[in-house]
């Protein structure tokens, strides 16, 4: 029977140890009848297991589909092998036996209906202590949920990508490898690609794809001239200039900020500002603009503080990058430090999983992943890395004792940071202390106020000792006066401290190594109180490269994690990234679940293309710009969105690709929230295209050393206005209260990794274009700019509006139709407060405003072809 044990695959040493212990205990005991252990088991243990446990934990339960937690309690092997949470008992060690903990209702609660009587639990305790004698035979064959490591290594996304070229014969269409892959599939399905889009469509499409802005009239004009002069070079030159523009980083940096769940406030219960987060935003924009290789980009964000640097500025930059790990939304209302800590770690693990690996690993917090080959042990080996890492996000809400444990430092950066940091940190600690003192005094005073009010009620009741009560009332009134003085003194002290900050360094969110790196125990069912085995820090076992990255005992393992992620043999990192880039350009990913490359994710439509891009991307030095350049200069990207009906009418062609999976055309795509706002403002003439200077930002209005006091919260819940003249990427992202326009047009939720935004179409969006005051004011400025141009007649103005807004000439019919509309004065609702009737000029301006407004609301403006 011990052979049985071995066959069933014992893994951990501790199990083998108690196996040995069981042998020693059982073997010398001889005949069963004379065995007191047996008698004890049969009378005290077996009946309980049968009556209370085996309904859900037995071979019978398994055959009926009722087995819970993969745990069998109908054989000794089942008990020892255990289920999802590991062995149910450890013979001789009641305190390490989950079965007993569950019976005691600590962590798990079993049986679920009602706790068993105390003496039963005591019997089990004794039984385990005495070695858990159990004569029951039987082997356990559990149908495992999810995937084993071996199966996982054969799953498509976990096999290292290989670069294969498709056959080129018979392909006269393609201009690069991307096209060849696309064309091969189209040919297979007998679908022909669409003709190239016209130059005006292309120039507009490229500006939005690469810079997130429409081209100006001049830019369109310049492109057409260049196309005329040097037809072969105009497009590549345009692409190169757009890739070199600072607007490229503003557009593509925002794509990364979506997955990095960038936000300028914490969100959740205490929505305090992340005053210093903008350093990270600017870092991302700069990294994209300088085409920092993606592998280096990831390394800096995960372990920038541990990398070599060549100047103080370089050091600061790499420190700022690690804000990536500290940016998550935290539950500062949580009063249990361990729960808080594990929640922060969970958020970081989900971040790494979904943003970089395309795997959701959060499930493994409580049980082995139901679908993907990620075990609970894998989860907690990653958790160990983050437990050994201290996130630095600063003071949270000052003046609350219960959750003060959540306060952290910030990292000082910039000139003199080393000198200024200590006094800066001391100052923040002092503010916390003074705020606490003030709040304590306030609540002490309030307690007396409440007691006083109750006493005043009681004194009116019949049968009360009024003289005693009234003297108490008097006493309390005096006490309140004393407290008034104390409270005022504390308030004044705090105020003085706030008004007199010392010289402060610049701060950033960041992470750093914790003082003592440590491994993490498995948290059974995710519970911080029910701990299982200690697992060494490391990366998931299903990746064959994992063993190449041992983690030194005195380090967190973040550097190893970063190097592991960007290892050329990591099968996911490059695939996931190139897929997202593809998705941003073509509107639909090769894998349509960009944050899930696991079993539940979708399979790639063009697996060889995805692999080609991934390998090619790495070979090209992980250059984002080179990747994008190749994609937008492919003939695939240059296609038009040709008409379905025309195509289906073509002889011999069955059009069977309604979702455009095979990319036989480029379908119109909706402008995302930022592009929409930026385009409206550029066309109206109100956009300031220079990068935002921090001192002009929304947060500059607030004193970061003052506003975090608990009672000062409410202003922080106000959404920032969208009046800022700069590009949308510079608007602060306040979690929970995004600007109305961003909410309406499906801005990425900053609460979590967003690999793909929603594309909703709701009437509230139409109402925005019909009635929103900000939009109407932009339309009015646009029409004023048009009307004041003396060199134009009305037809010229309409033509100019079309050029600016749609990057094309208006047709004669379109101009005629617009003029019919514009020739009437607007019938505005009379303003009851106005003294006089509006002039004809005013009504004309209003009519033109109505026209410019509808231009903004038109599908042609909202969708790029």
């Amino acid at each position, binding site marked *: 029977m011990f052979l049985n044990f071995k066959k069933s695959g014992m893994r951990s040493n501790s199990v083998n140890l108690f196996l040995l212990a069981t042998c020693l205990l059982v073997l010398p005991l001889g005949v069963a009848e004379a065995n007191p252990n047996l008698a004890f088991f049969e009378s005290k243990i077996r009946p309980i297991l049968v009556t209370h446990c085996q309904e859900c934990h037995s071979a019978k339960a398994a055959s009926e589909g009722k087995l819970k937690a993969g745990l069998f309690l109908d054989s000794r092997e089942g008990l020892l092998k255990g289920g999802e949470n590991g062995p149910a008992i450890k013979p001789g060690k009641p305190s390490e036996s989950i079965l007993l903990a569950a019976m005691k209702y600590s962590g798990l609660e079993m049986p679920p209906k009602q706790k068993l009587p105390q003496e039963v639990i005591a019997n089990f305790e004794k039984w385990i202590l005495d070695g858990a004698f159990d004569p029951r035979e039987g082997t356990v064959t559990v149908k495992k949920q999810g995937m084993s490591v071996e199966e996982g290594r054969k799953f498509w996304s976990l096999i290292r990508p290989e670069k294969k070229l498709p056959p080129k014969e018979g392909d006269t269409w393609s201009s690069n490898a991307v096209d060849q892959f696309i064309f091969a599939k189209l040919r297979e399905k007998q679908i022909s690609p669409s003709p190239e889009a016209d130059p005006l469509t292309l120039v507009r499409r490229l500006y939005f794809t690469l810079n997130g802005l429409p081209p100006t009239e001049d830019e369109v004009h310049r492109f057409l001239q260049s196309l005329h002069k040097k037809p072969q070079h105009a497009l590549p030159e345009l692409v190169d200039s757009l890739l070199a523009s600072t607007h490229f980083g503003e557009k593509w940096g925002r794509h990364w900020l979506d997955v990095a769940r960038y936000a300028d406030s914490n969100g*959740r*219960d*205490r*929505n305090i500002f992340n005053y210093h987060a903008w350093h990270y935003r600017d870092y991302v924009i700069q990294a994209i603009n300088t085409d920092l290789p993606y592998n280096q980009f990831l390394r800096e964000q995960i372990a920038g503080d541990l990398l070599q640097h060549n100047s103080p500025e370089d050091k600061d930059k790499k420190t700022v990058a690690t804000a990536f790990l500290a940016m998550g939304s935290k539950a500062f*209302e949580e*009063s249990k430090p361990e729960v808080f800590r594990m*929640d922060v770690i969970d958020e970081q693990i989900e971040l790494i999983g979904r943003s970089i690996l395309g795997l*959701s690993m*959060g*499930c493994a917090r409580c049980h082995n992943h139901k679908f993907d080959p990620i075990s609970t042990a894998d989860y907690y080996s990653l958790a160990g890395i983050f437990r050994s890492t201290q996130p630095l996000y600063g003071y949270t809400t000052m003046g609350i004792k219960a959750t003060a444990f959540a306060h952290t430092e910030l990292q000082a950066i910039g000139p003199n940071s080393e000198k200024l940091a200590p006094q800066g940190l001391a100052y923040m600690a002092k503010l916390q202390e003074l705020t606490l003192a003030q709040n304590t005094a306030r609540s002490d005073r309030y*307690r007396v106020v*409440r007691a006083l*009010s*109750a*006493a005043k009620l*009681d004194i009116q009741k019949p049968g009360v000792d009024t003289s005693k009560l009234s003297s108490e009332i008097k006493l309390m009134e005096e006490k309140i006066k004393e407290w008034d003085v104390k409270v005022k003194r504390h308030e004044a002290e705090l105020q003085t401290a706030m008004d007199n900050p010392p010289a402060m360094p610049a701060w950033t969110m960041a992470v750093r190594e914790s003082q003592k790196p440590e491994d993490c125990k498995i948290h059974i069912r995710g519970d911080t109180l029910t701990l299982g085995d200690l697992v060494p820090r490391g990366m998931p076992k299903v990746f064959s490269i994992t063993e190449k990255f041992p983690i030194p005992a005195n380090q967190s393992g973040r550097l190893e994690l970063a190097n592991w992620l960007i290892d050329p043999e990591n099968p996911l990192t490059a695939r996931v990234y190139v897929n997202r880039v593809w998705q941003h350009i073509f509107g*639909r990913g090769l894998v349509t679940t960009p*944050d899930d490359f*696991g*079993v*539940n994710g979708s399979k790639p439509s063009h697996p060889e293309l995805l692999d080609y891009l991934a390998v090619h991307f790495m070979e090209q030095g992980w250059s984002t710009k080179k990747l994008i350049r190749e994609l937008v200069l492919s003939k695939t990207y240059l296609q038009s*969105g040709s*008409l379905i*009906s025309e195509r289906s009418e073509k002889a011999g062609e069955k059009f069977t690709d*309604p979702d455009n999976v095979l990319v036989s055309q480029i*379908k*119109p795509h*909706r402008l995302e929230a930022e592009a929409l706002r930026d385009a409206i403002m550029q066309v109206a003439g109100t956009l300031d295209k220079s990068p935002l200077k921090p001192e002009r930002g929304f947060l500059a209005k607030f004193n970061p050393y003052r506003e975090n006091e608990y009672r000062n919260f*409410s202003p922080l*819940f106000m959404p920032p206005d969208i009046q800022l003249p700069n590009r949308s990427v510079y608007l602060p992202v306040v979690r*929970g209260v995004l600007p109305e326009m961003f909410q309406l047009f499906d801005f990425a939720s900053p*609460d979590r990794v967003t690999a793909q935004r*929603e594309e*909703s*179409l*709701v*009437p*509230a969006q*139409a*109402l*925005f274009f*019909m*009635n929103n005051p900000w939009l109407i004011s932009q339309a009015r400025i646009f029409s004023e700019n048009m009307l004041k141009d003396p060199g134009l007649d009305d037809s010229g103005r309409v033509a100019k509006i079309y050029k600016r807004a749609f990057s094309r000439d208006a047709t004669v019919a379109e101009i005629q*139709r*617009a003029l019919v*509309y514009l020739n009437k004065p*607007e*019938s*505005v*609702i009379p303003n009851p407060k106005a003294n006089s009737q509006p002039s004809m000029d005013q009504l004309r301006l*209003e009519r033109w405003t*109505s*026209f410019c407004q*509808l231009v903004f*609301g*038109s*599908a*042609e403006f909202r*969708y790029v*072809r």
Partner: protein
Amino acid sequence: MNLQQLSRRQVLRQVSSGFGYLAFAGLSASSTAQETSSQPNSENAHGVKKPHFSPKAKRVIFLCMRGGPSHMETFDPKPKLLADHGKTARNKNSKLLGSRWKFSKHGQSGLEIVDLLPETARHADKLCVLRGMHTDNENHPQALEQMHTGSFQFIRPSIGSWMLYGLGSENQNLPGFISINPLTNLGGLRYYSSAFLPASCSATLLGDANRPVKNPMVGNLINNRLNRAAQREQLDLLQAMNRELLANTQEGRIEGVIESYELAFRMQEALPGVMDISGETKSTIARYNAEDTFGRQCLLARRFAEAGVRFIEVTHTDWDHHGFLTGGMTRNCATIDKPVASLLEDLAQRGMLEDTLVIWGGEFGRTPDDPTTDGRGHNNKGYSMWLAGGGVRGGMAHGSTDEYGYEAIDGKVHIHDLHATILHLMGLNHEKLTYRYGGRDFRLTDVHGRVVKEIVA
């Protein structure tokens, strides 16, 4: 290309994402809405969808009492607490505090209700009081979040969003989930968000509890500049341009854009109409005390229910009585009593109470003791809520707390159980109403929840 030749279905098949169009397929006409129904993972938030089984209730009005109203002063009489008033409590620093108000028996059922709520008490036989409520957290923000979403740890969809996701909207001219006077601070917007469900399942928010106004409004609903004819003229030109583009591209989403403008134009008409209470009689205004913010909310809730809105939430924000319990309870009960009673009365009179589930309650209850003698602490271990209409038994109290009111001991109903029961009454199986996100199927009740069959009529 003649657009007429391109049928709705054809377009539908040809749209790339399909999502936006699907949302509108149901919006424009209910006949097509039926066609797109009952896909378990359908993204269509607006067309009416079939429930899992025959429902008792079709809509919900949730009267949210933020702060945690005291059960010992409303629906859970505690004679023993009164008898031991002033004695040292479990917490040695505190004394037991009996209710200052009497309870009386009402209706045929003899349900006991505090004398502070005489109007509500007239409807005692309609109420099903859950005296054994309990929840996991005793902080306001987390308990409120769990009350709305089932989770206080993670960001999850609101119960109203689940409802809309599961059942769709009955009125194609109005939003299906409306929260009046919503809580916007301390994470409030979370309570009404669709989280990972389609954005169209989010609540439409009317007003803001931080700035209570009598006439809350939907964003961008009113145009102060153009009269209706002028706006129609503007819209006609816009739609002509859009139709040209549609003809040139045959892009389904552009048809969606066109329909969204028409719907928005209708909503401009329909929504203010529903919200305009000037047609209500003086006596109705008086019965609801509709000059007051809360009374106005209840009246609007009735009107939205009549118009076919699926989930309507109303908020009273001020039940956190750590002190000044006497004044606070007197004032708040006076504020809510008449409007709530009138709401029940009107729903019953219109024959709507049978398929409208009314829910009253806060995120938790209060302790039987407090260090001061006129206040109470937070209590998540035992408190009361009540349900009325929508297929629940009336005139009953289900469950109980211990003799003082510290914790639920019998007929315990966890907030997950309440969610499961609400979904059940709406014809939805809480274990089957799932949404796949991040690789796993999510439920309102997570892995918990038991339908409280005992209270189902």
